[in-house]
């Protein structure tokens, strides 16, 4: 199986889908010859031309608003929002238009837009360039919310997103772009709503999203050395959420730790924990715990920033806590 970076995997998916369907086009800031702020669309402008790779002014609202109109009129736009923080500028177009148009119009219109955007911190860009706002979108009916963690998942899920008739918020991660992994040579479309068990284990279930999967797997490795067998699940999609795979694991282990790189308060962890409590309460042997950002903006200074993000140590600590091996700790 060939190896490629997360970035290359995304670019491969874009290229394949643009070749397959002449209605697929890219729209966003600096995605032309510059190739996008993180280089995902590099080369596509020269390959497909300015009508298929539309480089826009700094206009996040118009990028998504125009994508909605273009989608309703029969095309498949893939919009890029340079940093997830900037998606706040397009919230009306996403929440009031894109998510609702199918329902509001009684099923007569569809808006197959993919909004790609990178989230996540760990690179010193401070409070307005490192947020992970996935929970906002999971809250809005009508949107699909995807967060791939590996190159193979990135390619397979982006292809599914582009072909799907629903609007998709496709959340990438800045520190994952350069990570490498095996990607099947053949065309694979990964269906929405299918979690992936990244590591099997019997003692505790760790559910982690996006880059947090890397920390969860490192923590699992360390815990294995102490005789603790951790199962790591990547939901891959927050909406639709594969709660059945999560519940099956929790029924096996009796314990769950949820890890996400966004504020703990009202984050996706709260939703997953609530569903576990509602449907598997009797099978739990310990509290469902969350490892997430403390409820603070992301600070600049490296020490402060590190303290604002989950890491391997905190996951190890939480697993031991739910197993009753260590006392509770303060999450900030």
């Amino acid at each position: 199986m060939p190896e490629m970076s997360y970035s290359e995997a995304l670019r491969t998916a874009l290229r394949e889908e643009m070749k397959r369907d002449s209605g697929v086009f890219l729209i966003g800031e600096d995605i032309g010859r510059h190739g996008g702020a993180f280089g995902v669309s590099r080369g596509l402008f020269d390959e497909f031309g300015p009508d298929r790779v539309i480089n826009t002014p700094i206009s996040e609202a118009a990028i998504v608003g125009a994508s909605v109109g273009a989608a309703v009129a029969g095309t498949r736009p893939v919009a890029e929002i340079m940093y997830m923080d900037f998606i706040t500028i397009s919230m009306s177009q996403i929440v009031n238009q894109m998510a609702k148009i199918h329902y509001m119009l009684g099923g007569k219109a569809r808006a197959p837009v993919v909004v790609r955007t990178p989230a996540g911190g760990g690179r010193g860009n401070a409070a307005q360039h490192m947020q992970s706002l996935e929970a906002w979108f999971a809250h809005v009916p009508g949107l699909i919310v995807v967060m791939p963690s590996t190159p193979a998942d990135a390619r397979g899920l982006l292809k599914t997103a582009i072909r799907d008739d629903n609007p998709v918020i496709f959340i990438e991660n800045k520190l994952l772009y350069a990570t490498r992994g095996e990607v099947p040579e053949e065309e694979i479309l990964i269906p929405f709503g299918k979690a992936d068990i990244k590591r099997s284990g019997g003692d505790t279930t760790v559910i982690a999203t996006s880059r947090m999967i890397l920390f969860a797997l490192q923590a699992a490795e360390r815990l294995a050395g102490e005789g603790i067998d951790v199962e790591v699940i990547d939901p891959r999609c927050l909406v639709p959420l594969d709660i059945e795979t999560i519940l099956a694991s929790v029924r096996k282990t009796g314990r769950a730790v949820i890890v996400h790189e966004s504020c703990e308060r009202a984050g996706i962890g709260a939703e997953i924990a609530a569903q576990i409590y509602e449907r598997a309460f009797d099978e739990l042997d310990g509290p469902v715990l969350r490892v997430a950002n403390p409820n603070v903006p992301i600070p600049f200074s490296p020490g402060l920033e590190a303290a604002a993000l989950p890491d391997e140590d905190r996951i190890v600590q939480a697993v031991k806590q739910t197993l009753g091996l260590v006392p509770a700790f303060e999450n900030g």
Partner: protein
Amino acid sequence: MNPEPELLLAMYQTMLRIRRFEERVGELFLQGRIWGAVHLYSGEEAMAVGACSALRTDDYITSTHRGHGHCIAKGADTKHMMAEIFGRQDGYCKGKGGSMHIADVNGGNLGANAIVGDGIAIACGAALASRIKHTDQISLAFFGDGAVGTGIFHESLNLAAVLQLPVVFICENNQYAVSTAMKDSSPVPHVADRASAYGIPATTVDGNDVLAVYKAAQEAVQRARSGGGPTLVEGLTYRWEGHYKGDPEVYRSAEEVASWRAKDPIVCFQSWLLQNEECGEEQLTHIKGLVEDEIRDAVTFAEESPQPALDELHTDIYID
């Protein structure tokens, strides 16, 4: 050059259909037979009819919260519109949208929109789709003077100009955004003045003169269709009713309303038709009869249409 008599009479009939539709909606709302809120279009008929008469069926429009007139002018069926306003199963949106979300996608109406300004970007997107698909369809965005204060208006005009999109921006300057007068919300007197910042050709016309609107729209549509990019047309008009039916209208005087009602776009057009001998009184009387019957039948249809089944609550959220 003025349109052929057949089109002139069709325009007259459509203006009258809008007026009677809105009058009935207002009455039914006050009687409690329609719930929610309604934003009536009476007084602005020349805008929707003048602009939509310059379009083809396969061209797109986006509309506003005051959208009933655009919907009728773009060719929608008043029965299904009225049923939607009643929240019934046979409405355009199966009762899920209501007055502020009526759309007729097959007829090129991408929908009324309750977020002021958002439809402008959607029209730009539909215009972009024409380019991607290599068709010569154009898009037309209706919006009010209030939308000019939104960010999406400026982003959309800029984007449309940079990409030279086949789109026409039609501003219905009805003088008020809810209660705030244009003079209190804009540092320049005309919406058309804004277009020069984006290099977009613009014009201001008498929005109560259906032929003036038609001619300006026709020129803009031709420019868009032939690859000449966007145009902004501002029509000066007035909404006879308040922002919504029941608005106490403390922000304007009865004299001001009366002065605009004296410039009734339908009466003006009727006089013009007769003076120019485009038709006779008996033809107009005949049209009035047809319109009365149509609107009566629309109300009957709406009232007889069933309530949506409760399982509709959970359909049309996601497409399988």
